[in-house]
């Protein structure tokens, strides 16, 4: 670790004061945490994934704690492109908060409309494509497990959003997440975010039915940290673009491990619910001792 001054990080051409972001979803639209978190101090906030049309999300139970983890089946509830680009995004920018805009679509058509809306909105210098949500029937993981689809989606974003950095967020629910990362890199992605939630489920033994209406849900939180760390290690060994580590960060040490695995930045998701100041604690540590150097020398 170098105790050097700057902990700035650059992704694509976009520079961030520090490499600690809030993950898409748990962070909402940022504003909700204004009383708990010093939002301006964060490197950035990945906003809740937005689709072109507003989405009501999934009915029924949406959250279930597991040992060391959290299952969610929110189903991409969001305000839609109109409200997002018209109100939420300007609100963040006006308050000096650094947004990374998370985008997803259910089909190619919705995707094109969404990108057009994003291009029209201006002011967006970096987006994260959520190619990996397990909680929706169409789009999300169905797209994100197929390297050809990843390539198509990333390529189109690069075409439409010229001058905007494009991050591809990947799912761990595959045999080799490295292959997905390679497809994204080859299609022009500026960075990779890994990982989204792992598919899991739970059963209510008293009601004798799955806890979630869609049966399956996405597992996040400390339980998945070792899996996320391995995914980041693997991707760093596969691509040359920066990798953003997310999954189960529960302590400052966890964040340091992602940097040692070669991540250029980290995102905090579930931990924001119970330890809302953790991102600030990580930033303080990085300011004090610098960003740990990668120990990942490739090839493994």
């Amino acid at each position, binding site marked *: 670790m170098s105790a050097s001054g700057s902990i700035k990080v650059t992704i694509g051409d976009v520079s961030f004061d520090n490499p600690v972001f809030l993950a898409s979803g748990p962070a909402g639209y940022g504003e909700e*945490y*204004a*009383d708990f978190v010093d939002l301006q101090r964060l490197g950035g906030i990945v906003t809740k994934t937005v689709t072109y049309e507003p989405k009501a*999300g999934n009915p029924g139970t949406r959250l279930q704690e597991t040992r060391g983890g959290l299952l969610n089946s929110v189903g991409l509830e969001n305000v839609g492109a109109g409200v997002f680009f018209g109100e939420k995004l300007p609100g963040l920018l006006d308050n000096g908060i650094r947004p990374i805009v998370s985008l997803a679509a259910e089909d190619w058509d919705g995707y094109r409309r969404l990108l057009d809306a994003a291009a029209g909105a201006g002011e967006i210098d970096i987006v994260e494509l959520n190619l990996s949500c397990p909680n929706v029937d169409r789009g999300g993981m169905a797209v994100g497990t197929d390297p050809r689809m990843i390539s198509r989606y990333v390529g189109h974003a690069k075409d439409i959003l010229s001058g905007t950095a494009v991050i591809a967020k990947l799912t761990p629910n595959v045999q080799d997440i490295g292959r997905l990362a390679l497809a994204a890199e080859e299609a022009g992605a500026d960075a990779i975010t890994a990982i989204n939630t792992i598919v899991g489920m739970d059963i209510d033994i008293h009601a004798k039915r799955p806890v979630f209406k869609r049966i399956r849900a996405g597992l996040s939180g400390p339980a998945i940290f070792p899996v996320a760390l391995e995914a980041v290690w693997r991707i760093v060994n596969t691509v040359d673009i920066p990798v953003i580590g997310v999954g189960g960060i*529960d302590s400052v040490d966890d964040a340091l491990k992602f940097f040692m695995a070669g991540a250029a930045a980290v995102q905090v998701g579930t931990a924001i619910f*119970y330890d809302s100041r953790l991102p600030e604690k990580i930033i303080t540590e990085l300011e004090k001792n610098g960003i740990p150097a990668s120990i990942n020398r490739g090839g493994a």
Partner: protein
Amino acid sequence: MGACLQTVPVSFRAEDRYDQSLGRLFLPGSMIDRGVEGDRLAGIEKGLFSAEVAGNEKLSPACRLIRFARPEGFPDAKPGHFVSVRVNSFSVPLLRRPYSIMDLTETELLLLVKVVGPGSRLLAEAAVGDRMDIAGVLGGTVFPSPAGEDAVFVGGGTGLAPMIFAARTWKREGNTGNSYLIHGAATSEELLGTFCESDFTKVFRSTMDGSEGYDGDAVSYLQSLLNDDTISGSKLYSCGPAGMVKALELKVSTRFDSHYTSLEAVMACGVGACRGCTVPLREEDGRKLRAVCSDGTVFDASQIAWEDWE
């Protein structure tokens, strides 16, 4: 937990926040149209606080009254507001646990805690002097005051907590109407309510197994109390198991001008960000999923789409 937590600078104007966070999908709908006072709160203050346990009383085999010294700067609260407690400093159980405010005085924050799992057990085992990380005050709506009219409170189990806060708050505010509490529990072991008798005009207690008080559920008890004119009122307030609140709404609410209920749901963020705690409402422009934490916890019970609510 360690060092004392302080509130951080507010970066949005609080007044804007609640309207903003609704977005287009979440136009407040009929609740605001009905213009009920106190229904939707603007300007509530939130923060993270390190609160010291000042007392821990056993009220029943499973229930504790936990007193926290009110931390410096802790915001004011209204009936229906809640806090979210991190019950330990390591991450098991993972999430904060939401608790209705049972009372908030100048010096104390009171919670009624029933042990149902690991989180509540850790909270119930708190010793005087322990510190816990509390997020509060949370909640986007509160119980509208009866404004001088007679109020009937139905509190099932620990649903009692916000009923007590309402009765105490309104008494302090000089509200003059009668207040009746119907408190129901499964068994006499779980029955509470003697400790709060002075907060209400009268307290009626029932158990499902008839082991103490009225033999039956709180809803039937209320029906019989209304039928034989023991009590009357125009405002109905409730908090408790979904089954109880649903029965109240479907069977008894027509006898009242209004029925407001404070709902519970599993929560992660407690501030409307994660969209994990939604309840289906029937609103003018159709069915909507609202966040219990930030669009509630208090809802007009007639709006809840009971058929879809577990």
